[in-house]
């Protein structure tokens, strides 16, 4: 059963003569538990595709299905719920809230979901142990290295046990050692937690961590 289904997805930017067709009617599916890497040159539309799948942006036409649900038909509140429960985001620049500690950043989706923090204490401990930052739980993001910050952002994406993690160039801002650690972590959570991962990457090496590669060129799958 496919967890993500893309149907004739089109995204244009600009208007009139300045209109740029970034995605030209894409069709593909991702099965539950897959680890897919989205590759392509700059401007090929891979990040745009990721944001459309995550509901951060709206398509010009076509449909994105998550668990057979057309996400474009969802209301703002339902979309927020989907982002909280089904999808976890990991960004290139981590996007951590700088004045919250590591554990507070990780627990942010729990708070946003209106759940009790204490109910997620065990889950938090487990995730912190998975990402190897149990001893840094009280630290602020600026007290961590880039790789550690990215691991916190992955932990935040995992806390509510989402079905999917969408990662936008997760190691793009990291040195090779930290990059490898992060990719190992992705592999681990994909295997152990069964979370479907869709990552956008430039790196062939990190793309190989996944079990499928989708290549984009000028808005089309090649």
């Amino acid at each position, binding site marked *: 059963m496919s967890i993500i289904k893309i149907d004739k997805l089109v995204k244009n930017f600009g208007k009139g003569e300045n209109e740029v067709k970034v995605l030209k009617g894409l069709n593909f599916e991702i099965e539950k538990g897959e680890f897919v890497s989205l590759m392509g040159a700059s401007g090929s539309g891979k990040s745009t595709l990721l944001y459309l799948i995550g509901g*951060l942006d709206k398509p010009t036409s076509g449909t994105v299905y998550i668990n057979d649900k057309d996400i474009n038909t969802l209301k703002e509140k339902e979309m927020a719920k989907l982002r909280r429960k089904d999808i976890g985001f990991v960004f290139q620049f981590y996007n951590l809230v700088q*004045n919250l500690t590591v554990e507070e950043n990780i627990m942010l989706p729990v708070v946003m979901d209106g759940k009790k923090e204490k109910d997620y204490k065990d889950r938090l401990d487990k995730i912190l142990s998975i990402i190897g930052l149990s001893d840094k739980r009280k630290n602020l993001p600026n007290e961590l290295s880039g790789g550690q910050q990215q691991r916190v952002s992955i932990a935040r994406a995992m806390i509510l046990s989402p079905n999917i993690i969408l990662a936008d160039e997760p190691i793009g801002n990291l040195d090779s050692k930290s990059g490898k650690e992060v990719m190992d972590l992705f592999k681990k959570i994909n295997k152990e937690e069964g979370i479907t991962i869709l990552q956008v990457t430039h790196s062939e090496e990190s793309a190989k961590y996944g079990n499928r590669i989708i290549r984009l060129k000028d808005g089309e799958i090649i």
Partner: protein
Amino acid sequence: MKIILKHILRNLKEHKMRAFLIFFSLLVSTSVFVISLTISDDLTIKVEDTLRSVYGNAEVQVATVDPFKLDDLKMNKDKYSYLGMSSLDGVDAKEKPISILGMDIEKAVDFKLLGNDAKKLALNEIYINKNLEDKGYKKGQVIKLKYEDKEYNLTIKGVIENKGIASIRPDDDTFFASIETVNSIKNIEDGNYDTIYFDLKNNNKIGEFVDYIKDHNDNYMVAKTVDMESIKEATSMISTIMYLILLMATIMIYFVISSLNKIILAERIPVIGTFRSVGASRTKMNLILVLENALYGIFAGLFGAIIGTYLDSYCSSVFITADGIDVAKSSVSLSVGTILIGILFATLLQIIIVVKEIIRTNKKPIKDLIFNTQNSRYKMRKKRTVIGFILLISSIILFVLIKNIDMLTIGVLLICFIVGVANTLPLIFQLISKCLAYIFKKIGWSTGIITSKNIGYNKMIISSSRLVVIAISLLSSIILMSKATADCFTGFREVTKNVDLMISNPHKSSEEYDYLNDIDGVKEVQFLNSYFADDITYTKGKNKNKKFNLPPGFYAEKERKNVYIEEIDYKISDLKDDEILFDEKYAFKNNIKKGDKITMHFGTLKKSYTYTVKGFVNASNFNVSRNMVVVSYNHLINDLNGIPMQLHIVLDKGYDPDEMKDVVHDAMKEVGIYVQTTEEYISEQEGQVAGIIAIVYLVIGISVTLAFIGILNNQVIGFINRRKEIAILNSTCMNKTQIKKMLALETILSNFISLFIATIVSFITTIFVNNFMMNIGLYLNIKYDFMTVFKFELIVYILLLLTLFVPFRKLKKMNIVDEIKYE
């Protein structure tokens, strides 16, 4: 929730300066709000308490010049208790004027007109109060009283507390005796009084009782000891002034906070994006941001309510000037209600200011928020500009068209005008920017071209400029208003510059003071003739017995010596007995025109006269309220009041006014008169408004500080938000010196344009403020003094230019690579 609260509190902690600025702005607004709410009631209670402490249970006072008996009065009540008093004015062995107040001492204690320590006195025994004891009088001392060529020995039986009427500190020494003592000295029968106090036991009928006595008895002065209506009327004016200050302070604070909030939100956009990306809905995010702002309101409201309550007691003491009476303590105390109202006000104000921008920010797509794709270019919204233009024009047109405009309408029009200015400013800046770009292009100055474009299209510059225009124009108006208040006495000082001594409270007609001319050193005696009463109604056309908003004072002059009243279109000396001149502002306020026939009804005098309005005068040198009318001298002296209000004495050259003051006082041998040098008189009058001026200056001081810190903060954050733009310019086409020049030119030009516009705006806001003050009966004669505004703006301009040091320093430290690597 705990995490969200932590996040909010850490935000406040991390941006202490901004948090403090918002907190302080709200605190000021809340304090002024609390004062505005409570001052009227506090003043009313304070004045009432003060008067009650003097008059005790006495509710009505009936007095005449000649002694009268209770039976002489026609009254509509038989259930009352009364206390008669008889007084006499004589001199002591040293020819010093003294007064004896006679009464039934035990009854006076029951009336609470004297303290409990006063006991029955035998014939020729007197009491002194503590004040007289301090002056050197002693128990057992015998006072020699000279009264109508006879001498009497009065023995001081004891010292009584400064309570009731014994708490009044008159200029002349006053002793308290039994009524028998006074009547025997005056040689009149028992049961004769010159004043009777009534305790009616039923407050609701006091007005009826007073009116009945007035209507059925001639030549009596009848008054309530505590006239709540008059007190409330006077205190509501003060409250209205506070509301005006509140309105202006709030408008300015609105722009300070709104500008800060925009910057705070702009800086926090990626964080908002992060929250949204982890599942916060728009509503939830809006609530988080509103909660953060509500915290400012809660704390500022709490402290504002506390400060406002304590300031209220200071403000109300400033407004009450009771010569010779100990003013009652403030009745306002900090209550849970006041705190809740303060918190509610500050929280609502803060939320109203920020909520629109919060919702607008959250409407942006998450992708734009998370990657902060906002640019620093100002995008003008046509709808907003059009609305602004409509508000701007319509507020001015309506202000001109509406006759007899009321306070509320002026307030609303002032807000519309300010909002109109704020919304049209971006358009004005863009037009100016285009003109500047054209000029710089012609002279080929590339830095100038970039700068001129920034002036019209940079969000931060537009935001700062808007703040400068609104804050400075409102502050200019407040400064002009306070200057006009401080200048109230300048005109009077100018007119009386040749007068050396002023004698207040004379009791005789002008002719009886001829002897003053014989005093060595006295060159000339002038008389200021006027009549003030609060029971004048008028009939004009269909307006039957209409009450003036503020009763007029009548003025007349025998010959034109000093220009207390400025003639405008008719000579005062040409006035006939049935002709009248109105102060121009007072006439405008009461809708009185030249040629109108007005019948005035004088309640106390029981007379009515019909006058033809012959023209107008300017009475600003004479009376700040300008509620003056001028009548012929003969009419005033013969029909209204034969006793001058003041005597003005011009001395021969070489005579010292301070020394002559005592000489004249001793020569007059008249109880109750008050001789002062002109300087002393004016200083005393100025002293009465010094407190009010101090409050106004305090508000100005706080407002200037707030506005300046707000603008400075805008400049600094503006630079921080433009770091990337500056880094790109530096990496591609400009060196740091060129960037410095660009920033300097931006600051010089944008602030110059802002202050130029502020000058025009302040001209109009001053007209609004002037009319508002006129509306509440204060004809302050606020003139648009360009030099004052210019000096103020010059100081502000220099301070604004000094803020350049901050971006210069930051530019020097800036690492270009760090800034552009995230682009």
